[in-house]
């Protein structure tokens, strides 16, 4: 555990495979060293499957010291076992634990980063569940997205959620994230590849960002950007 105060929300990662659960803990932990991440993967003898006892032990540790916890499960019996554990747990424990309906790896990373920022249980749960919409444009919340117009420009609009607005860290995140796409992105007219231009916008919490994207991966880039802004860059 780090020197800083551990985050108030822990994560329990339940997989059929011990290697997957432990790998996800490593991956998420890299971006969220202050969060208690517990793996409960595989059966008790190390085979593929889920172990009631391992999940129960992990949940119990997760909520110790007054923390609450979000559980991510990979498939089938991992979900059923986690639900069984919560059904049979003390109400005092169960009320502080939520099972996320989220993709395992992406959900774990998003939840861990959000928890690392000190967010509460509902926020961490929402971050995990929203991670599913990072894939494919059609899953993004429709309100934030407009269809591509005839001019080949993909557009979107999204409201800035994090308190400090588009300051240095989120601006850097945006620029870095968009570099992965074959697309040219403008936010309120500024070139989104430039951290400086983004910061100069001076956009603050509650401001609406207008997004215009061109290029072969325009839709993907727009969706990733919308999702990251809605996520509050892990700061909300």
């Amino acid at each position, binding site marked *: 555990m780090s020197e800083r105060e551990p985050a108030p929300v822990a994560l329990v990662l339940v997989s059929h495979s011990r290697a997957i659960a432990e790998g996800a803990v490593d991956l998420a932990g890299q971006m969220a060293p202050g969060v208690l991440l517990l793996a409960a993967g595989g059966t*008790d003898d190390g085979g593929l499957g*889920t172990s009631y006892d391992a999940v129960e032990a992990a949940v119990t540790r997760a909520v110790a010291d007054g923390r609450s916890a979000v559980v991510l499960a990979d498939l089938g019996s991992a979900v059923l076992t986690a639900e069984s554990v919560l059904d049979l747990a003390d109400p005092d424990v169960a009320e502080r634990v939520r099972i996320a309906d989220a993709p395992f790896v992406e959900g774990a990373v998003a939840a861990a980063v959000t928890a690392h920022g000190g967010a509460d249980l509902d926020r961490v749960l929402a971050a995990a569940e929203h991670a599913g919409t990072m894939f494919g444009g059609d899953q993004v919340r429709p309100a934030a997205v407009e269809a591509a117009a005839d001019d080949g420009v993909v557009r979107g609009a999204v409201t800035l959620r994090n308190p400090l607005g588009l300051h240095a860290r989120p601006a850097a995140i945006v620029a870095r994230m968009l570099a992965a796409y074959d697309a040219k992105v403008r936010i309120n007219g500024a070139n989104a590849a430039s951290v400086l231009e983004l910061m100069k916008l001076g956009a603050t919490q509650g401001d609406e960002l207008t997004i215009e994207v061109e290029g072969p991966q325009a839709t993907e880039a727009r969706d990733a950007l919308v999702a990251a802004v809605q996520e509050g860059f892990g700061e909300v």
Partner: protein
Amino acid sequence: MTLDVAWAVDWVRRSADAVAEHREELIELDRQIGDGDHGENLNRGFTAVVAKLDALEEPPGEIGDVLKLVATTLMSTVGGAAGPLYGTAFLRAAKATAVPELDTKGVVALLEAALEGIVVRGKARTGEKTMVDAWTPASEAAAAASDAGASAAEALEAAAQAAADGAQATIPLVATKGRASYLGERSAGHLDPGARSTELILQAAAQAAA
């Protein structure tokens, strides 16, 4: 004729025997539309149940005690979806049978509670190619037998037969719950392993009562 705790113990031991005997078959069924572990999972679970029964210092006092032991043991040793599903089924059944002896209505209550547990846990309805397709007709058949004045043993016999028919009826179905649902249309043409194991377990219940 009512059923007592000795019946419950006999049911559990017969279930364990049946699962062990049909282990390969259940594995093969699950290999066709799943991950091939159902026979292994259940055999591990019921072997652990029998070991716990054998290790008891005093024989279990009530039917509910036996069913609760089955529930908690399956839950923590099966390792697949059948663990929490059967675990919840036996747990609910244990709560519904907090009486020294079961008459026909008691049998109906047991089966209905078990089915309810499976549905609460797995959220499957009939027709989704799961064990629900065996438990639902079983509990309905027991209720119908009860209305017709059947004995507890006869109600279990009717339930076992209905479970067998229900299991067969899963063959043409397309799975929409559980691991088999990943196969989509390709799951049709195969017997659901969980429906088959349900048939075996309810057959054991009827045999123990006969």
